[in-house]
């Protein structure tokens, strides 16, 4: 019941960050690599949005673009990033400095390369607090630092804040990064693969911490990952990306019960669950993700898709609303769901399978 209320409430709720028609490319001396090719994502206030995709799907680049943190070889070609009623692509450098870290914080996969090895953890968190214009004296900064370390459940915070990053374990470093991210009470936290480099036991601890922080502070979270299992633990809504495009967008449970896009279905089917029959072969997705320096014209997943038809290879399908099992709020980019697209016999078979859901 709670879930249903939350969902219907969030549908009408306003967005905290809206990415509209984003195109981002990287340029080498030889060619242009379109990493993000027209992405629309709205992050709703107070939600935890999972952004799932493989390496090269554009999931990180989308949100690095949103914060204008692209490397010098990357450029936003088109699109708007609406935050607080204004377009961040047109924002001044000083406005961007306010937003980054202050209102929207970001944490990354490898905390070791995001932390300064020559500064103590306490000094780095203190720097963050002071950088955002809070005129606080040293004692107040120290007190806030201690409070932050306790919030992220770092044991013995008084001792820890005088230590250097190399004295921290991987999980503790990620906690310290989260503490830094929380320093200015951001309203949106973008977590880019925060648990990928960690052991499953530590991943579990970090996911629990993020869940608790979200409940306590009400901030919105964007959780970028390749791991659908981690998404199921944390998120209420999911965006699945492939080759620089959003392929599917759905509330969390329907996505796992009845994934719409053949790519999502393939991903869920290829992961052995703990109840997987060991004598049965896994069902992999054939082939490899496309080379983005020669991005395909039609649906980028078509070469790997068992349902591909002629139209898929020539015309890219649009991201369209789908009502499946009475579940609203779902979008899918696939010709299978276009009533006016030429049908073939595979179509009916696929839809009935999708309705049954995927057992994994």
């Amino acid at each position, binding site marked *: 019941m709670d879930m249903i209320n939350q969902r219907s409430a969030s549908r009408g709720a306003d967005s905290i960050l809206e990415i509209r028609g984003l195109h981002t490319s990287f340029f080498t001396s030889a060619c242009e690599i379109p990493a993000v090719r027209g992405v629309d994502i709205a992050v709703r206030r107070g939600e935890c949005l999972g952004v799932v995709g493989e390496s090269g799907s554009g999931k990180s680049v989308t949100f690095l673009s949103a914060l204008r943190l692209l490397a010098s070889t990357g450029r936003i070609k088109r699109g708007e990033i609406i935050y607080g009623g204004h377009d961040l692509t047109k924002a001044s450098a000083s406005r961007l400095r306010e937003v980054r870290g202050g209102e929207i914080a970001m944490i990354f996969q490898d905390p070791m390369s995001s932390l300064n090895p020559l500064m103590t953890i306490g000094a780095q968190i203190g720097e963050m607090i002071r950088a955002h214009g809070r005129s606080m004296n040293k004692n107040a900064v120290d007190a806030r630092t201690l409070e932050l370390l306790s919030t992220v459940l770092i044991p013995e915070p008084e001792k820890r804040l005088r230590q250097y990053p190399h004295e921290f374990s991987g*999980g*503790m470093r990620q906690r310290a990064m989260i503490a830094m991210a929380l320093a200015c009470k951001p309203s949106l936290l973008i977590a880019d693969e925060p648990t990928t480099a960690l052991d*499953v036991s530590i991943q*579990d601890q970090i996911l629990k911490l993020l869940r608790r922080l979200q409940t306590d502070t009400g901030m919105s979270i964007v959780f970028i990952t390749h791991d659908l*299992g981690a998404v199921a*633990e944390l998120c209420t809504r999911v965006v699945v990306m492939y080759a620089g495009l959003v392929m599917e967008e759905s509330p969390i449970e329907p996505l796992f019960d009845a994934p719409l896009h053949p*790519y999502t279905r393939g991903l869920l089917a290829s992961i052995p669950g703990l109840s997987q029959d060991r004598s049965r072969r*896994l069902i992999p997705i054939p082939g490899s993700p496309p080379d983005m320096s020669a991005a395909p014209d039609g649906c980028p997943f078509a070469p790997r898709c068992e349902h591909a038809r002629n139209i898929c290879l020539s015309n890219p399908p649009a991201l369209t609303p789908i009502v499946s099992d009475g579940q609203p709020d779902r979008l899918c980019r696939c010709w299978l769901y276009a009533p006016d697209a030429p049908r073939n016999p595979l179509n009916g078979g696929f839809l009935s399978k999708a309705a049954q859901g995927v057992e994994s």
Partner: protein
Amino acid sequence: MTAPLLSVENLAQHFRVRGSGRAESRSVVRAVDGVTFTLDEGRTFGLVGESGCGKSTCARSILRIYTPTSGRITLDGEDITHMSQDALPPIRRKMQMIFQDPYASLNPRMTVRDLIAEPLRAHRPDMSRAEADDAVFEMLEKVGLTREHSGRYPHEFSGGQRQRVGVARALILRPKLVVCDEPISALDVSIQAQIVNLLRDFQEKLGLAYLFIAHDLSMVRYMSDTISVMYLGKLVESSPADDLYARPLHPYTRGLLASIPAGHPRLARLRTESGLSGDIPSPIDPPSGCAFRTRCPHAMARCAEAAPPLTEVGGGHRAACYLINP
């Protein structure tokens, strides 16, 4: 009953730590400390545990990349524990390794043909260039690549294709034992199942034995016949694969299993067992007695005194904990 292909008895691999500034008695890391198991031909032995638990070191000692501190390793009836470097090459033909990162483990300046033929050049000087090429082409097709790929360099391949090259390199000598150290964790999710299926097909066709190391517990269960759980250099539980997941006995195993994402949002909300708290302690200064006691919800006074022995509880299921062995 035939002898097992690989038998590891009380294997210990200690490393001296220099310049740690600690007392002499503490400057030894007991990376592997008394590991015992056997592996039959055509079977898979899974080794799981958090990073730093010693699972990769254990595999490397077995491959004799290190010389073990003590214990005994028997491969195919031969004691290889202290075999000299000169005597090892014929042994290494029988055991090969598939590495985690196909981006780092393939020389970028070598063509795929040379990469796959390299083990042949080292171990089969009797083979002519043409014979080696034929073997390479045959191997390429078996791992799902083609002859046309042989002149290309690693950077021209995707991660999954590179790992296929890694598999081909390991299998070209027709080994009996293959150590797979996290063979899929660097690959994209959509590719992992391809490589896992490839490994299983080879096992079926060639009767290979795998020592399979991974941190993905669902994948280890899917691949392995027997699984051992390792913590700070020691096996804390060992069991036939299904039994371990159905009836985990050691609190560490239970915590690890409870940490795995449930795989479905509804199951995630229903989860009751809590995962593990804290981090793995430093192997330079491990806790006395049972090394897990500092994170164990059931720790008792005697856990600090002596490490509990690995005790059989029936059906080949063994665990090292005073809870099951009072």
